[in-house]
């Protein structure tokens, strides 16, 4: 896979509820540069908004002193998006514990499910400078499966 994106955006924002709309506006603008159809564009926007909402709410705990980092890379055959917050991250067990039993009438716990459904690959983890990063990869044109996950792996 080629290494240099055709189009690249990098943002740093004060943590606030506005981050959700602003990153969505920017993603929406960038998606116009891709050949994804309208339905796929919309699904991806929702998935990314889930990750940003989580960063703002769970990661940065709505603290206005914290920062939010967002990047979007458009390649010929894929889009890579990453969201970083200044929180501690989470593990799957916590999440299972929180929502495992709540069922369909739970008022939360749907964000990550949407992300998993929409993304071709998701990766979470701490960055070198102690932030929590969620990266999402979405293919724009069908690609051989063995190629998946090479570039997003290496941060």
């Amino acid at each position: 896979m080629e290494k240099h994106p055709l189009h690249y955006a990098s943002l740093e924002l004060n943590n606030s509820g506005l981050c959700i709309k602003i990153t969505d506006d920017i993603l929406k603008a960038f998606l116009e540069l891709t050949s994804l159809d309208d339905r796929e564009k919309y699904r991806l926007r929702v998935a990314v908004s889930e990750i940003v909402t989580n960063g703002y709410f769970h990661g940065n705990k709505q603290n206005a002193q914290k920062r939010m980092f967002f990047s979007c890379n458009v390649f010929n055959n894929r889009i890579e998006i990453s969201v970083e917050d200044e929180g501690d991250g989470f593990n799957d067990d916590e999440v299972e514990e929180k929502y495992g039993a709540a069922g369909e009438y739970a008022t939360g716990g749907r964000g990550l499910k949407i992300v998993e459904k929409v993304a071709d690959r998701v990766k979470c983890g701490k960055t070198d400078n102690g932030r929590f990063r969620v990266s999402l990869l979405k293919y724009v044109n069908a690609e051989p499966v063995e190629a998946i996950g090479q570039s997003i792996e290496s941060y």
Partner: protein
Amino acid sequence: MNISKSMVGDIAVIKLNGRLDLETSKTLKGLTKELMADNHNKMIFDLTDVDFINSSGLGTLVSILRDVNSKKGNLELCSLAPYIQEIFEITHLSSIFRIYENEEEALSSFAVTENKTE
């Protein structure tokens, strides 16, 4: 999120406009709390002009549905764009909400309910 409300008999028809996300869905929750405080427990949410919804917005809708159900009221949704509808399906919420094509159908569902209880 812009919200406009009109009453059709005792049914509050609430037109939503714009984004339904973590920030914006607070307004909607506030409005329905007021309605229920005034004993208005029958509502239709018209989503024609909702152009973005994510799980925070859905969570708010579920929370309102629970409030309404606990008061033996009704919450009906109508006029979802196909891509909005799909988000309901991905999250298995199309099974707990009643979703109508348009406002008319949503309104007539109340008539049927009332006939039944007669």
